[in-house]
């Protein structure tokens, strides 16, 4: 260790590159991506379980399966988990793992910041779920409970949107909503840090020659998503600070009696909320735009149109938020304006759908599982989009908002859209991740079973909503004829659960015993298929130079006079050579060393969270102090630790 850095090593810098310890201190974007993926999948199972409990309660009229408190906790946690702990981190898994590979970089711009984002996310999620152990709730002030709220019921119970004033201390007694507010605050911070990291990576670490309009569409969609994250998360951070101060320090932001304005919460929440739902859907759109061309053996139809449509959706996302509030009594002029702006968003979405159809037109379609999921995405997302347009018509929305019609809409868009897109991506990049092929038969079973279950579950919700079934209702009267269709929905939900089990079985078995996949099983078009799978830690032995969009395809194929691709005779040789050089690079490659500090900061933030919640007690204040101190010392320690870019003059010999 050279003199300059000696003081920084209070304890020796971690050097493990294998085994458990290497995962804890890793800064490798691939390991972080894998960890994001597995954590998100674990939360998907938990969120799915919550959904099944909800469906059992609603299977028949006047159900008694869950108590009112438990039902409210389950639907809130289902919403919060699926949005913040499943789709966002799963998109982060794809972005972290694939962005550097697709743009020809060795790692993200700030590897340790990337690790920090993951650890803050993980411990933020665990902090949120610790409400089931420590959280307390009860009847509103002055109310009486039928019986003590069970552990299952002591979780945030004011909806994933947490409308004020129901979240005020006098209506939400106990600590569960503090867990919700501070948990989301920590998760928001994780996404904000990773968005800044990825924006810098996309702009500054592209392969030579890869101009912006030569980047794969998934990279473009990630760029738009990260800008949406960077600009929308601060808004929810302010809103969450306001509700935390209202609950903990008695501020009057949403106390209507003393000047506060409950509608302000809705404005701030949905100002973040709508860009948020585009953050959930755009990565899946990016995945579909990568999968469709490969299995149609045709370039993406209208690349520039798809990219600009994505950017337009991202930007317009900031101008439509009040369509969630049409019936909340905002002025008629505002309702008209937001209704029209919501309609304009349907146009770029339409462009994307037509361009996907254009991609498949005249293609040579191979119906592998990723292709099936992508076509499923296009079909189901169209239904979600169309039902979305029907409630941009304001008077119609007065009938539809807060009913199961809206539940159907956003499940068609989020489940039919994002989850289908994510499964398409998981199957598509499975060979790259593991070096083995998944079982096509199991994959198809999984798709058709999920497709059936999905439609059985969410199609009936459209007319349930139109017949007057209200959202978040613990039960519905027996004289309304909503019972039969609700039973169908419950059965559908269990079919989806079965299909998820099929996926898990396929994943676990094929990871070990799947057939060898090689580096380019799909004869694909983007850079991540030019390196060995699973990719070595340094990704590219030689940073590639890119001359055109879908450069790898053009290296493998030339075009005859009818513009039909003809495989170059050198193509197979090229693929073998890429595999060979990929595995043994010429010169040694410097890689940023692992570090303790990301996990240290990640651990100290929830301690601050507990401190804020229990600042009333002495040990709460102590916790707060310890947490803040730990955060600062970890950051200061981090600043001392040289990031160890290869160009460091004084310490070329540092271990890596």
């Amino acid at each position: 260790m050279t003199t300059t850095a000696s003081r920084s090593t209070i304890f020796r810098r971690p050097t493990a590159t294998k085994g458990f310890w290497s995962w804890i201190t890793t800064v490798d974007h691939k390991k972080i991506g894998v960890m994001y993926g597995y954590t998100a999948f674990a939360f998907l199972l938990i969120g799915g379980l919550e959904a099944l409990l909800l469906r059992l309660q609603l299977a028949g009229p006047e159900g008694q399966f869950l108590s009112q408190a438990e039902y409210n906790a389950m639907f809130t946690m289902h919403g919060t988990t699926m949005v913040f702990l499943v789709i966002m981190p799963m998109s982060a898994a794809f972005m972290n793992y694939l962005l550097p590979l697709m743009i020809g970089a060795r790692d993200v711009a700030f590897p340790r910041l990337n690790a920090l984002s993951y650890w803050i996310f993980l411990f933020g999620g665990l902090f949120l779920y610790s409400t089931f152990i420590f959280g307390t709730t009860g009847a509103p002030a002055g109310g009486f409970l039928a019986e003590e709220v069970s552990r299952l019921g002591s979780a945030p119970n004011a909806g994933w949107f947490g409308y004020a004033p129901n979240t005020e201390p006098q209506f939400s007694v106990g600590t569960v909503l503090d867990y919700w507010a501070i948990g989301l605050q920590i998760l928001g911070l994780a996404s904000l840090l990773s968005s800044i990291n990825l924006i810098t990576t996309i702009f500054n670490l592209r392969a030579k020659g890869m101009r912006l309009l030569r980047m794969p569409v998934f990279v473009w969609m990630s760029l738009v998503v990260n800008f949406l994250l960077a600009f929308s998360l601060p808004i929810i951070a302010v809103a969450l600070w306001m509700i935390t101060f209202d609950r903990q320090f008695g501020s009057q932001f949403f106390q209507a009696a003393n000047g506060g304005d409950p509608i302000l919460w809705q404005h701030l929440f949905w100002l973040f909320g709508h860009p948020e739902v585009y953050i959930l859907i755009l990565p899946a759109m990016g995945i579909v735009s990568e999968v469709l061309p490969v299995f149609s053996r045709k370039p993406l139809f209208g690349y520039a149109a798809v990219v600009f449509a994505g950017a337009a959706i991202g930007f317009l996302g900031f101008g439509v938020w009040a369509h969630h509030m049409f019936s909340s009594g905002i002025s008629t002029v505002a309702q008209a304006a937001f209704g029209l702006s919501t309609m304009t968003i349907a146009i770029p979405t339409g462009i994307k759908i037509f361009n996907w159809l254009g991609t498949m037109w005249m293609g040579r379609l191979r119906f592998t599982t990723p292709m099936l999921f992508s076509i499923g995405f296009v079909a189901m997302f169209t239904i979600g989009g169309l039902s979305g347009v029907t409630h941009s018509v304001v008077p119609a929305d007065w009938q539809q908002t807060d009913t199961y019609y809206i539940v159907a809409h956003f499940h068609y868009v989020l489940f039919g859209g994002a989850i289908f897109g994510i499964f398409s991506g998981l199957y598509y990049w499975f060979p790259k991740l593991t070096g083995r092929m998944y079982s096509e038969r199991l994959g198809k079973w999984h798709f058709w079973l999920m497709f059936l279950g999905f439609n059985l579950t969410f199609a009936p919700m459209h007319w349930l909503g139109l017949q007057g079934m209200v959202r978040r209702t613990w039960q519905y009267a027996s004289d309304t004829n909503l019972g039969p269709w609700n039973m169908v929905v419950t059965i559908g939900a269990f079919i989806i659960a079965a299909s998820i089990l099929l996926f898990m079985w396929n994943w676990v078995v094929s990871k070990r015993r799947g057939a060898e996949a090689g580096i380019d099983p799909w004869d694909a078009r983007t850079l991540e298929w030019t390196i060995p799978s699973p990719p070595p830690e340094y990704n590219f032995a030689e940073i590639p130079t890119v001359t055109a969009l879908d450069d790898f395809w053009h290296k493998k194929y030339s075009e005859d006079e009818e513009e039909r691709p003809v495989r170059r005779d050198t193509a197979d040789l090229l693929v073998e050579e890429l595999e060979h050089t990929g595995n043994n690079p010429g010169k040694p490659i410097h890689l940023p060393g692992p570090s303790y500090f990301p996990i240290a900061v990640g651990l100290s933030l929830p301690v601050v969270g507990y401190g804020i919640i229990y600042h009333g007690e002495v040990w709460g204040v102590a916790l707060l102090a310890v947490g803040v101190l730990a955060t600062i010392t970890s950051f200061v320690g981090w600043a001392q630790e040289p990031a160890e870019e290869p160009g460091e003059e004084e310490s070329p010999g540092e271990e890596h």
Partner: protein
Amino acid sequence: MSEPAQPEAHHHPSPRQYVQIALLLAVLTGIEVGLYYTEPTFGRLVTPALLILAAIKFGLVVGYYMHLKYEKRFLTGFFGAGFILAGLVYAVVLVSVLILPRFG
């Protein structure tokens, strides 16, 4: 904006220029505070004047102290994007909560 002196080739404002800019900022702040006290007389004119002064100070600090004037164009683009987006979005919030309810 008044340009005290054409910045030399290596586009670093010299310390002397920094001090000049600082003085200019101080003067502008003084004018702002002065305007505050004339509020009863000028009435409606004060608010726009204060906003313009604030904008000038904003521009001075961002342009010279944060060196945005000499940086590449897209940095101004990112920073401007955040500023304009915030301005637009919160203007709409303020309008729809404070002004539009009057129209019913």
